[in-house]
């Protein structure tokens, strides 16, 4: 009986605490919607961030992988969630692309930006079974055989837009085959079932082992870890393509909760531990605060719209 009372006491006490603490965001676990499958590159970037955010917020941050339909299912769930700060949405450039491709009516404007977290430069990667030694060899072959060189890509997403931009700038014609996600693309390219794909520096080990070839990197400068890979800029193509990832919350989330999340994000992304795990993902930490991220989103939305229109992928 005594035990029962002490249990009851504990329940009452914690209920009381919860009531007083409800003014203080957050007083219960925060859900982070990752709109792609676990184990993908987006998941690999936000998974190490979650415990660091948790440390700052003092409440568990639980990842919910809500994949499917090019990430639009997760976007919809995030948009329809209560705007109370307890649902955060992990996003990358696809939000602009799927909108302009007509896959969804949701756009980045349905959310409030919290922070930009990371940037991952794209690398044009070739199968070991291709005859080309470098970029020049690839372009020469592509000009000889228009529409025959195959590219594995998630159609309509960044891995499609990047090679398509290269295709246009280099004046060549490629053939696209649907391989959703980096892991299936890697299996296909190692087996020589596709010739080219968009990847990133996470595949460095395979290049060093001679299983893959990096043709060119789409960053401003060469990467210090892979100094032999030329940038597209050096090769005369004015293309810088980085996949950027950040956090957003549904529109209408109270400013106090947003400020708290933004502050937690700033501190979490500044930790050395986070930089280390990002390096393993071929990614650099690229923090922007609420205001700068908002401005940045407007800027890249315009750019993505232009690319989609340019490539003829825009929904009429």
């Amino acid at each position: 009986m005594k035990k029962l009372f002490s249990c009851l006491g504990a329940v009452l006490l914690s209920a009381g605490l919860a009531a007083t603490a409800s003014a203080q965001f957050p007083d219960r676990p925060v859900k982070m919607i990752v709109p792609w499958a676990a184990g993908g590159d987006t998941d690999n970037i936000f998974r190490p961030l979650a415990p660091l955010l948790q440390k700052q917020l003092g409440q568990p941050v639980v990842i919910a992988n809500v994949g499917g339909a090019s990430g639009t299912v997760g976007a919809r769930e995030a948009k329809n969630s209560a705007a109370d700060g307890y649902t955060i949405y992990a996003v990358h450039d696809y939000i602009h692309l799927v909108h302009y491709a007509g896959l969804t009516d949701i756009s980045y404007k349905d959310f409030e930006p919290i922070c930009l977290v990371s940037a991952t430069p794209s690398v044009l990667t070739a199968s070991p079974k291709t005859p080309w030694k470098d970029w020049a060899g690839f372009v020469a072959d592509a000009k000889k055989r228009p529409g025959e060189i195959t590219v594995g890509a998630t159609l309509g997403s960044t891995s499609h837009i990047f090679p398509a931009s290269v295709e246009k700038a280099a004046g060549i014609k490629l053939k696209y085959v649907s391989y959703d996600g980096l892991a299936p693309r890697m299996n296909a390219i190692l087996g020589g079932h596709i010739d080219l794909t968009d990847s990133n520096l996470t595949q460095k080990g395979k290049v060093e082992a001679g299983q893959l070839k990096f043709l060119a990197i789409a960053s401003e400068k060469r990467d210090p870890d892979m100094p032999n890979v030329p940038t597209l800029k050096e090769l005369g193509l004015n293309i810088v393509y980085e996949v950027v990832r950040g956090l957003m919350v549904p529109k209408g989330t109270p400013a106090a909760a947003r400020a708290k999340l933004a502050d937690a994000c700033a501190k979490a992304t500044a930790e050395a531990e986070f930089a280390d795990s990002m390096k393993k993902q071929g990614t650099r930490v690229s923090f922007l605060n609420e205001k700068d991220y908002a401005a940045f989103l407007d800027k890249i939305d315009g750019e993505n719209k232009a690319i989609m229109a340019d490539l003829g992928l825009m929904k009429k």
Partner: protein
Amino acid sequence: MLELLGSGVFTILQWKFFLPLFLGTLAGVIGGAVPGVTITMTIIVILPFTYGLEPLAGLAAMTGVYVGGSAGGLITACLLGIPGTPSAIATTFDGFPMARNGEPGRALWLGVWASFFGGLLGGAFLILVTAPLAAIALEFGPWEYFSLFVLAMAMVAGLAEASLVKGLMATAIGLLITVIGTDPIGNALRFNFGSEFLSAGFPFLPVLIGIFAFAQIMADVEKVRDPQQTEGVAAVGQPTLRISHLAIIWEILSRPVLLLWSTIVGIVIGVLPAIGGSAANMMAYDQAKKFSPRPEKFGTGVPEGIIASESSNNANVGGSLVTIMAFGIPGDAVTAVMLGAMTIHGIQSGPLFVSQNAEIAYGIYAAYILAHPLMVLIIGLSTIFILKVTAVRLAVLAPVVLVLCVIGAYALNNTMGSVYVLLLFGVFGYVLVKAGFPLAPLILGLILGDQIELNLIRAIMTDANPWLFLTRPISGGLLLAAALSVVFAIWQHLRHQQRISEADADF
């Protein structure tokens, strides 16, 4: 490789991995032994407990369930004459007669040691073959995957015990379920009825839990008032299980051809996607009977029958693990859950799995090997208690399993939608069970639906020439095998029907 295996064994021997492995094996043995609870169900029940563990700890627990469950079925099969799992059906044929003839201990331990040796031989295969097979798996382009899936579906539909037509229909239903949702290539919405949740298609694990656990438990609930459940215990009475282990082991090892052949049957069926232990034990038993000099004795309690059935179903586990680790394709519903658990932890299985996650891969090997002595130990110490568990009233057991099913579905991605899917498919699966449809082909259709569509379209996107499916050697060979297996299934069904009509004529 031996070094890696050694370090894998040392890793698993740490408490944080060994304890989940032990508990998993224990749960597997119990789940396997309790009639009506399958290995799939047990692993589904274990699933939510592994979310919070390290990936390897969770996988060790699941490997334990798989090994323990494949052996556990023999306890009730031998002592009560009721197969604890479908993979122990053939064990009842000779195990139970032997027990009734006054040798329950011999029947039980022949099964246990046959499982042990069959499992370890399967393990040797797993360790030696996975890496080379993964290299071959890289050579599999979209054409080969497509043809492999066609072969798998042809085989499973043909193996369906009920009828070839119902097997094919069940496969088709499984494929149709995967059509719902966004198409995997062009993102066009199909049959989502305006629902945002459905636009991602039905989430696989809740559907699986609904069909396999929920629907089957419901079918068992009907039997709650059935007195037959307790009858079995009386049939054997209080068994004396004391026997000489050396004599039993000798009895098995003195039949090396039988042991080896049954193991090979088990492994091959395990490697082929989605056929599973329930087919392995029947097939190995059938083979043993065919090659035996005294086939007429089968069914009266001969040791060969038990050895064939039990060594094959544990070897089958090794074969299934090869398929998920080298190809990233689930071999059956159990490995489908394991694959799902890997993805939850952010591990991608597939041809690159062993080379990229060597620590986890060798950890799984080590867990698989260590699970076997654990299984022997657990069965040795607890058979009497397990028999008592099987006497637990279903009225108590069923609600517990049902609640754990719901928790497992919800915890997958913390969405209520998954729970509704579970309920919907629980009811749907129950209707199918009642209508006499086999569920294994349905699950296979469900597992492979998206993949078969993706690979077909990928193949055509890569090269529009449809003859490539036949002219690429591996792909063509697989399609030929698929055609042969359908022909074989038709022939077998015809022969079976003929036998039935002959039997009728005798009356």
